[in-house]
């Protein structure tokens, strides 16, 4: 049975003559094709009239620009010099990206960032979900409170973390120095080469662990009780139950969360741009920051278009896997 929260089951006020029983009987008596011949527009027409505007909008705002980007990626076009002659340079933008050590550095920084945020968020998020699933009193309220950070603007809140990270006056430095005794002036979260990447990982984990937690919780709740009951009958230990029931059955949900966070963090821009802007040096320069620098600061439009296409392809591949997992979870 599907959950029809807060919805009236039958519309009686709009058409009082439609009583449940007649309706059901009528519906049962009506094979699908017959419905299409009822007066008015044909179903085929309605379907296209309803779907076309969305498709057209996406073609105009997403696909047309995408094709334009592909076109530009083979040129040396610069957006800040629109009158200069545009030269076709074939694949050399792509060749340069794939051999350029800076872009590889950016890809590596992105990979580190994606890896660590996923590891931390999955561990903490799953643990939290597991604990919340103990269904202690008030768990619903605390769940809602935990969810708050993920709804907020990463840019606006990320920006405020700069203040928390201030070495002398920031709350973060104060708390760390309170517990460790390290002088607060030495906790340079955003300007120390080793600490800066972690500063971003911490904010991202703070913000998105709730996301992983919520999906894991759904996974845990999708496991029917009778499986555990059967395991109890078989005297399987809690440990055994966790490894052979809980984890495998929640796994598609965990995958869903991991993939989505992976995609999102692969293209991470706002938080990094505001916290460190890619610095110090280029230690936190993730792919999106490099792309922004190339496209909107150095104005190498052709080169950055090629880079954008490479990122597209990568994201597209991940998105494909994501949708497959999504459909699998949906059928549960």
């Amino acid at each position, binding site marked *: 049975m*599907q959950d029809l929260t807060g919805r009236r089951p039958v*519309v009686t006020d709009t058409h009082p003559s439609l009583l449940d029983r007649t309706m059901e009987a009528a519906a049962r008596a009506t094979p699908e094709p017959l419905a299409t011949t009822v007066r008015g527009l044909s179903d085929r027409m309605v379907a296209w009239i309803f779907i076309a505007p*969305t498709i057209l909008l996406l073609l105009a705002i997403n696909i047309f620009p*995408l094709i*334009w980007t592909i076109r530009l990626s083979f040129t040396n076009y610069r957006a800040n010099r629109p009158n200069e002659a545009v030269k076709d340079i074939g694949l050399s933008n792509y060749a340069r990206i794939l051999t350029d050590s800076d872009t590889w550095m950016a890809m590596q920084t992105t990979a580190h960032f994606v890896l660590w945020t996923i590891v931390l968020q999955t561990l903490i998020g799953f643990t939290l979900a597991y604990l919340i699933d103990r269904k202690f009193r008030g768990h619903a309220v*605390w769940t809602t409170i935990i969810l708050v950070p993920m709804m907020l603007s990463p*840019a606006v809140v990320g920006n405020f973390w700069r203040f928390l990270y201030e070495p002398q006056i920031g709350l973060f430095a104060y708390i760390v120095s309170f517990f460790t005794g390290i002088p607060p002036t030495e906790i340079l979260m955003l300007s120390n080469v080793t600490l800066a990447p972690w500063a971003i990982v911490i904010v991202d984990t703070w913000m998105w662990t709730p996301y992983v937690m919520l999906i894991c919780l759904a996974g845990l709740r999708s496991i029917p009780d009778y499986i555990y009951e059967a395991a109890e009958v078989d005297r399987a230990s809690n440990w055994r139950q966790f490894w052979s029931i809980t984890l495998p059955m929640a796994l598609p949900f965990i995958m869903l969360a991991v993939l989505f966070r992976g995609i999102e963090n692969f293209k991470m821009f706002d938080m990094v741009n505001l916290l460190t802007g890619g610095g110090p040096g280029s230690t936190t320069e993730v792919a999106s920051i490099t792309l922004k620098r190339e*496209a909107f600061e150095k104005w190498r439009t052709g080169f950055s*278009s090629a*880079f954008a296409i490479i990122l597209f392809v990568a994201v597209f591949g991940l998105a494909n896997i994501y949708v497959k997992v999504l459909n699998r979870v949906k059928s549960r």
Partner: protein
Amino acid sequence: MSAAAHSVVEPSTTSKRVAATLVIVYAVVSMIPLFWIFATSFKTPPDSIAYPPKIVFTPSIEGYCNLFTTRTRQTAEYINALPPATSFCDETTRKRNMVIAGPSNFLPRFLNSIVIAFGSTFLAVFLGTLAAYGFSRFKVPLADDLLFFILSTRFMPPIAVAIPIYLMYREIGLSDTALGMILLYTAVNVSLAVWLLKGFIDEIPREYEEAAMIDGYTRLQAFWRVVLPQATTGIAATAIFCLIFAWNEYAFAALLTSGTAQTAPPFIPTIIGEGGQDWPAVAAGTTIFLVPILVFTILLRKQLLRGITFGAVRK
């Protein structure tokens, strides 16, 4: 969120206590940054940068004054010669040897956020409802591919999209306009709207419309009078999700708007006072910006899971 008691699998009291403690500790710790934003917005600039950080302080609305005004430094003689201060903001500004020079850009930026977020939400939900109904009720050729195409547009890296959009908008005069931003956010949000609403509409039995059509309704009338009233919860939840996305969005706004159409997220980080960032003012702006989201999150709490999984996970 059922809490039905199952004799066999019900966790023990001890494990519940341990779980509750750990979850509450996490929740409280994760609220500290938000509490700090709120607290800082009511501090004076000297209090905000005190060491050790002040947890107990005399609240002041100076941050909010500074958020909404621009101020200039003046000599003591000039300030003394002025007529008496008419408001609290006037008074505090003068105490710092400054006078209010005029309103800041915060209000127009905030209004831009409202116009762009609501405009794009309305469009996305409108288009999304139609398309979702189309996909839910009719045999659309290549439906799965089209749906994947629609969803995949949401995964595009914003900076990569911004490059051609920047060029395109420059050509057709949509650069730095609210309309341009509304169209862009609509395109991003419509994918979420279609997927979410398709889930909601799938749940409405199609027998309702078919019965109505037997009764003489056309397909459009059945959609309007039977399906839409049933889908209001879903439409409202979808609208809030779209609103939150458009409200929070930063990358496009930062790259494609610079003045007249700039929204609050790229503006708030640029609030500076004398000698660096004016943190109480930033905190005040952040607080005002976050309050609507907090309200919406609480309203949405039952639908959150659906929203973040594009309607795939329902409970």
